[in-house]
């Protein structure tokens, strides 16, 4: 590594100290600063969505709806879903970790369009502000799925402001995806061929394709819902010749691929972590890249598996069920390959690796239950019950959120130049794992028993499982609060991090922690394959981690 730029005061120039003051942050075009802006925003929305979840679980402690009124409860689950999906799950990994790391990983100075990157953040903030307005102005109770004609004809709540907020968030997502695709195509350092790209980058590439092609469809669909409300059009209203199923097709055409937007980046993270903490190149690099692209492509072909009891024809159902099994195969391949990567590895169990283990286990469970749902005869019984809720939370929370936390711990030294406290990290990971399973496993049972979703009052015989679930939720909340506290603590008191505390492969580790504004002192030239752990030293022992210069 060449010499860093040192300022007059003797301090090395990093992206964090290159300019102070609000303007230098709010008008930045540095992808790393934008990533931090996103980090603050999505964390904020995560806790709002999480707060709604806690209220939901509190209400569900008792069979009668006693804590809040019916309308309020309907708003709680609606806004929990909207905030979590559109303002946390979709942007979190790409806009925070993707933004920060992709240029570093490919050896570039920034994304292809830094100003559009900043614009993406502002669009997200505008959308988020509208969402906050919606919440404060009385909420919205359409369900995050906005089914018509309920949302177009029968509700008097803040539907349009919610729609516009989501529209802006969607546009932000499209531009992020566009930026990533161009960056990965055009900005790779000399020698960084497609087959040397880290799987994190491949995962974001596949995700970006979905973001660019899928999001506009839900955008126009929600625009139609808003127009229908404003001008009493009849596009989805049967009384005027419209078809409510048309809404569902258009909505799910995006919203199914959207779940792959949420999970693919997490899979990219897991690949990086598993390789580093097993000291091994990924098993089956080619298969892994084909798998992410395959998931993205086939993911566009399965949307009507959300509609098996909606009134579609038998033949449509048969086709979509079969296609849904096709999309399961690449996901299974990834789980097998991660496991195989550990074979004859040299494994250590730092916090990121604990989260990766958690991901693999919980994603496997969530994914297998997806096979239940793709199965027509099975889905008829469990559709719109807590079985579905358990399924997608296993993937989203047990999968994606754990991957996100794993990634945050893994790259925290690079982002902040500080180590997080390892003991607390392990403890929090354990608490999250226990809390998560206690919250959501009982919901599989509740679902098969027949408890419908979106119910705030339920038959008494379902109570004990609900109580278990709520107990788990409180434990999970503690698990999420801990990193908040110790990450913030570490920014001041954490051990200063060296450029590569994990001796990990990847260009991002070849530069300082935190990196300088333009990422590398000298343009890297790549002459090695990805995950060249055979050429890299072992992971440092705790005592060996050198203090940063």
């Amino acid at each position, binding site marked *: 590594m060449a010499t860093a730029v040192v300022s007059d005061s003797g301090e090395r120039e990093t992206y964090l100290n290159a300019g102070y003051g609000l303007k230098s942050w709010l008008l930045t075009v540095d992808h790393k600063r934008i990533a931090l802006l996103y980090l603050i925003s999505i964390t904020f929305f995560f806790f709002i969505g999480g707060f709604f979840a806690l209220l939901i679980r509190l209400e569900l402690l008792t069979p009668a709806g006693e804590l809040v009124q019916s*309308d309020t409860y309907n708003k709680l689950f609606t806004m929990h879903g909207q905030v979590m999906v559109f303002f946390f799950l979709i942007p979190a990994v790409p806009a925070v970790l993707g933004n920060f790391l992709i240029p570093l990983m490919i050896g570039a100075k920034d994304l292809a369009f830094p100003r559009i990157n900043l614009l993406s953040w502002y669009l997200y903030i505008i959308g988020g502000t509208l969402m906050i307005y919606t919440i404060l102005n009385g909420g919205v109770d359409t369900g995050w799925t906005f089914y018509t004609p309920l949302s177009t004809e029968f509700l008097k709540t803040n539907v349009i402001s919610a729609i516009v907020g989501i529209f802006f968030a969607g546009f932000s997502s499209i531009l992020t995806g566009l930026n990533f695709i161009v960056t990965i195509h055009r900005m790779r350092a000399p020698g960084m061929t497609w087959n040397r790209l880290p799987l994190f980058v491949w995962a974001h590439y596949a995700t970006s394709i979905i973001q660019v092609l899928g999001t506009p469809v839900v955008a126009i669909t929600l625009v139609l819902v808003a127009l229908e409300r404003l001008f009493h059009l009849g596009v989805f209203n049967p009384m005027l010749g419209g078809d409510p199923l048309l809404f569902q097709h258009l909505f799910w055409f995006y919203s199914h691929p959207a779940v792959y937007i949420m999970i693919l980046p997490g899979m990219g993270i897991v690949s990086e972590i598993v390789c580093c903490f097993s000291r091994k190149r990924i098993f089956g690099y080619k298969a892994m890249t084909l798998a992410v692209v395959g998931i993205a492509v086939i993911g566009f072909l399965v949307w009507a598996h959300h509609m098996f009891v909606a009134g579609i024809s038998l033949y*449509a159902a048969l086709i979509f069920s079969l296609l849904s099994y096709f999309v399961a195969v690449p996901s*299974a391949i990834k789980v097998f390959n991660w496991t195989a990567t550990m074979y004859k590895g*040299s494994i250590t169990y730092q916090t990121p690796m604990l989260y990766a283990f958690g991901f693999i286990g919980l994603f496997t469970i969530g994914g297998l239950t997806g096979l239940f749902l793709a*199965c027509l005869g099975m889905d008829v019984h469990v559709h*719109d019950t807590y079985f579905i809720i358990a399924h997608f939370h296993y993937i989203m929370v047990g999968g994606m959120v754990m991957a996100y936390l794993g990634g945050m711990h893994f790259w925290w030294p690079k982002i902040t130049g500080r180590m997080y406290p390892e003991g607390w990290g392990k403890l929090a990971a354990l608490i999250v794992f226990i809390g998560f399973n206690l919250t959501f496993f009982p919901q599989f049972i509740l679902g098969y*028993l*027949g408890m*419908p979703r979106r119910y705030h009052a339920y038959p008494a015989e379902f109570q004990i499982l609900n109580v278990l679930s709520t107990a788990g939720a409180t434990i999970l909340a503690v698990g999420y609060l801990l990193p908040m506290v110790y990450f913030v603590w570490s920014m001041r008191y954490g051990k200063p991090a060296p450029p590569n505390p994990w001796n990990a492969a990847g260009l991002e580790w070849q530069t300082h922690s935190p990196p300088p504004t333009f990422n590398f002192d000298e343009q890297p030239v790549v002459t090695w394959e990805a995950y060249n752990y055979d050429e890299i030293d072992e992971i440092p022992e705790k005592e060996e981690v050198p203090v940063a210069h």
Partner: protein
Amino acid sequence: MFGHLPLWPDSASTNAGNVDALYIFLLLVSGIMIALIFTVLTVFAIRFRKRRGQRAVQIEGSHQLEVTWSIIPFCVMLVFYIWGAVIYFQERTPPQDATEVYTVAKQWMWKFEHKGGQREINELHVPVGRDVKMIMTSQDVIHSFFVPAFRIKQDVLPGRYTTLWFRATKAGTYHLFCSQYCGTQHSGMVGWIKVMEPSDYEAWMSGGGNQPLAVTGQKLFAELGCVTCHRSDTQGRGPDLAGVFGKPVLLQDGRTVTADENYIRESILEPGAKIVQGFKPVMPTFQGQVSDEQLNALVDYVKSLAGPQSGRPADSNPAAGASPQL
């Protein structure tokens, strides 16, 4: 509260057993899969933990393994697919001669009407051992008719009929839930399916002098003036409806559709949508003039009209035929 921990729903229909068998199979295969992966992960995590002096062995991959662990799981999944598809096909093919019950769902209640004219709200009496077919529509938003004990569910849509059928196997009282979010009282749109022994059921049916649905329909048919054009004595301005139900109908534009419940309903509300060949488009619409319950009565009346050669009209799936389904 801690009295009993329910783990399995009641099984009270022929379908329930089939679905349970499939579920158990899925659970077993998944359980094996999970056990396998968790065991391998644990073994690897312990066996290949970092040891001083030992480095990891780099393995590029294995084409053979990739193919194997793609194909074998996929074949297992095909078993899931076919098994599930068979059950689904059975669920969506109501048997002929099923006892029909008309359902009108509205925010936030279930209204049932038996063919004999008995009306129920939020409670449905059915006999053990007999096929029952629900012909359902909604007055407002999308609802969903869900009976966990029968393992069946079907969304109920405004503007058209959807159907669902079951054969109850055990007398008892079972939950009915609305399972499509429909607004404020969605959690309150619940009821009971009361399955009765056949003798009890007959007793229940005969109590209270109800006018059979088809008779109600016949009276409406006269009151609304339908009878002036749809005559069977002479050629009226509209087609003779005797025996039309379940038969193919040739339309003006050359298409042929099956005269199922949705077709009859559409003909009343939107007569211009499908003109029968050889007739002029002069039928007025009754949209806004008849309630969903009255529509059910009219539909049931037309269904009851036997053809010139007496014999039952062929049964059909009322969800097909009327408008193209998405």
